[in-house]
C-alpha cells in the first residue's frame, strides 16, 4: 500500500541578505534533506526544540510554504507540481491547526463563520445545511452551539483551540498537521485537547503529523516518532522502540531532560551542555557534536548519513554500529 503522504528529500533554505545591495550572503538551512512516509490513519510525532525546523517542515507538507527542493506526494500526486486550481481542490483534504489559538482565528468573524467558511468555499455544504453542519461540528469538539454567534475573544484559550480544530475537521481532511496544538494551554486543558484530538482521529481515521517539543505528549499520541535537530531528522522509529532504546544521543538527552514525577527518584542526570546552535551558523560535521557527550573526531568533520537500524527505524549518527556491537 502506498503511503498517504510521501516526503522526499525536502529542503527549505531561507536566503540571508547583507552587504551593499542586499546580496544574498548565505542561506539558513531551516529544513535540510528530510524524507518520511505517513500512512493512512497513522499519527507521526515530530519532536524537536525551537528553531529546529519542525514548523517549516509541517507547512511544506501542505505547501503553505514553497520548498527549495524535494518532493511531496499526497495520494501519489506531487503537490509541488500542482497549479493553483488543482491545489485548491486538494486543500480540504489537507488541514492544519496552529499553536496559537489567539492569533490563528480571525477576530472579525464569529465562530459560525470561522467554522463554516471552509465548507462554504469548498462547497461541502449549501446555504441550507451550513448552519446545521456548523452546529454539528461544534458539538463534536465540545462547544455549545448556542455560542455560535460569539467572537474569538469571548472564548478561553482551550475553547479557541476547539474552534480551530472544528474549523479544520469540518472539511473531513485525510491529513491533519497539528503544530504545537497544546503548548499554549494550561496543563489541565492540554489533557482535554489531547483527548479530543485522539478521539476525533480514531473516529475519522485521518493521518496526523503531530508537531511538539513535548516528548510526553508526542509519545502518548503517536505510533511513530521523528526527532529533529537543526533542520535534519536525526532519528525515526516506532514510538515504543524509540523510547525504549533511543539510538541517537540527542534523543537520549531529550528523554533524560524530562523531569520525573516522582520526588523519590530524582534523576539528577547531567543535562545536555550548551544551547541549540543558531541555524544560521550550524556546527561542522554532525550538527549535534558540540553538545554530544560521545562525540569523537569524525563527528566534527564528517556529516553522518542516515543508517537503517531495522526496517522501521533509522538514525543519523556515526556512533551507531549496524553490526550491533
Amino acid at each position, binding site marked *: 500500500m502506498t503511503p498517504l503522504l510521501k516526503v522526499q528529500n525536502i529542503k527549505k533554505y531561507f536566503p540571508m541578505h547583507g552587504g551593499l545591495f542586499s546580496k544574498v550572503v548565505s542561506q539558513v538551512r531551516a529544513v535540510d534533506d528530510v524524507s518520511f512516509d505517513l500512512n493512512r490513519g497513522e499519527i507521526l510525532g515530530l519532536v524537536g*526544540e*525551537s528553531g529546529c525546523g519542525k514548523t517549516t517542515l509541517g507547512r511544506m507538507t501542505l505547501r503553505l510554504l514553497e520548498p527549495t527542493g524535494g518532493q511531496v506526494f499526497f495520494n501519489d500526486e506531487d503537490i509541488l507540481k500542482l497549479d493553483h486550481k488543482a491545489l485548491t481542490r486538494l486543500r480540504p483534504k489537507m488541514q492544519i491547526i496552529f499553536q496559537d489559538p489567539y492569533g490563528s482565528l480571525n477576530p472579525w468573524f464569529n465562530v459560525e463563520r470561522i467554522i463554516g467558511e471552509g465548507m462554504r468555499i469548498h462547497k461541502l455544504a449549501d446555504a441550507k445545511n451550513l448552519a446545521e453542519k456548523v452546529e454539528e461540528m461544534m458539538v463534536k469538539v465540545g462547544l455549545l452551539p448556542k455560542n455560535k454567534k460569539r467572537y474569538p475573544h469571548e472564548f*478561553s484559550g*482551550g*475553547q479557541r483551540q476547539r474552534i480551530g480544530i472544528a474549523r479544520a475537521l469540518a472539511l473531513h481532511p485525510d491529513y491533519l498537521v497539528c503544530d504545537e496544538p497544546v503548548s499554549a494551554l*494550561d*496543563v*489541565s*486543558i*492540554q*489533557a*482535554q485537547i*489531547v*483527548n479530543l484530538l*485522539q*478521539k476525533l482521529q480514531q473516529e475519522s481515521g485521518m493521518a496526523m503529523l503531530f508537531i511538539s*517539543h*513535548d*516528548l*510526553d*505528549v508526542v*509519545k*502518548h*499520541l503517536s505510533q511513530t516518532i521523528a526527532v529533529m535537530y537543526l533542520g535534519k531528522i536525526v532519528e525515526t522509529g516506532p*514510538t*515504543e522502540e524509540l*523510547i525504549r532504546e533511543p539510538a541517537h544521543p540527542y534523543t537520549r*538527552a*531529550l528523554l533524560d*531532560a*524530562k*523531569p*520525573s*514525577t*516522582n*520526588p*523519590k527518584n*530524582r*534523576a539528577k*542526570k547531567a*543535562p*545536555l*551542555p550548551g*544551547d*541549540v546552535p543558531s541555524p544560521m551558523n550550524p556546527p561542522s560535521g554532525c550538527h549535534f557534536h558540540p*553538545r554530544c557527550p560521545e562525540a569523537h573526531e569524525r563527528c566534527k568533520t564528517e556529516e553522518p548519513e542516515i543508517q537503517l537500524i531495522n526496517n522501521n527505524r533509522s538514525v543519523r549518527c556515526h556512533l551507531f554500529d549496524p553490526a550491533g556491537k
Partner: protein
Amino acid sequence: MPALLDVDNLRVHFQTDEGVIQAVRDVSLQIQEGETLALVGESGCGKSVAAMSAMRLVPTPPGEYVSGNIHFDGRDVFSLSKSELQDLRGNDIAMIFQEPMTSLNPLLTVGDQIMEAVCLHQNKSARDARKITLDVLRQVAIPSPEERIDQYPHEMSGGMKQRIMIAMAISCKPKLLIADEPTTALDVTTQGQILNLLDELRRSTGMAILLITHNLGLVAEYADRVAVMYSGKIVEEAPVETLFEFPAHPYTRGLLNSIPQNKSGGTLQSIPGEPPNPANLPPGCAFYPRCQWSRPGFEEKLPPQFSVPDSHPDHKVACWLYENGERPNFES
C-alpha cells in the same frame, strides 16, 4: 525558628472594569531559610501576584492589599518606607521572570545591567562592580565572561539570557529568590541546566527559592515543599514526597493525572471544564463545578484547611471531603 518569609492571610484585589478581581484570597505561606518552596497552579490562579506581594510589587491601584500581613526576616513589609523597600528589593529578595527576552534592556550591555544593580544596592565603585559582575557571571557558568560582559542581550541565546537574569538577581546575595516560571520560555534541554544552576546556587549560598511553576515534573525534581493554588487560594500544601505519594486535593490529583505518563495510548484523565472567572467566584469551593467527588453543599461554604489524616503533620488540604477526619476513597 521564625520563617524567612511569612505571609499571613494575605488578600489582594484588583479593581477592573469587570468588577473586583480577587486575585489572592487569604493566602498564608512560610518559607524557611535555604529551602525551595514550589507554588503551583495554572495561569490566572494568583501565584505570581502572591509572590510579587512579598516585595510589595503589585501596583496600587489597580491592585489593593485588602488584608493580611507579610513579614520578611522579622520585618513588617507593609510598614517599610520607600527607601527601606528599595533596600528589601534586590538586597534581600530578588526575582527572575519567565521571559528573559523582554526582561533585559536591549540598549545596554548585560554587564552594565548587572553593574547597575550592584552599584545601586551595594554602593560599590564602578571598578569593584565590574569585578563583582565578572564573579557572578562565572557563578552562573557563562562561558568566557570577560567577553560576554560587554555584549548585548540580542547576542545571546534564551538560556544564556536567563543566566544573565539569574546573575543579576544573585549579584546582591539575596536571602530569597523568587523564580517566576523561570524555564517556561526555554527549550527542554536548557530547562534542566537552569534549574540545576538555581539548585546549586541555593546550596552554595543558602538562599531560599520560591519557585512558581505550572510544571509538576519540575516540582518533583527540585522542590522541598509544595503549595498548590487554585482561584486565589492555596488548596493543598505538603512536603514534596508526601504530596506525590498522596495528592489529597481533587485538583492536585487532576493535575497529576493530566500529565501523559510513561505508557503510550489510552485516554488521559483530564479535568473537565475551566477555572472560574476570577471576577465572579462562587461562594464555596471554587473547584466544585469541575470536581467529580463534590457533593451538594460544597458550593456554599469555603472549605477551611484540614490536616490530611495518616500523613505528614504538615500536609494540609482545603477540601470538604476531609471534614470528618478520614481519607476519602478516590478509587471508587
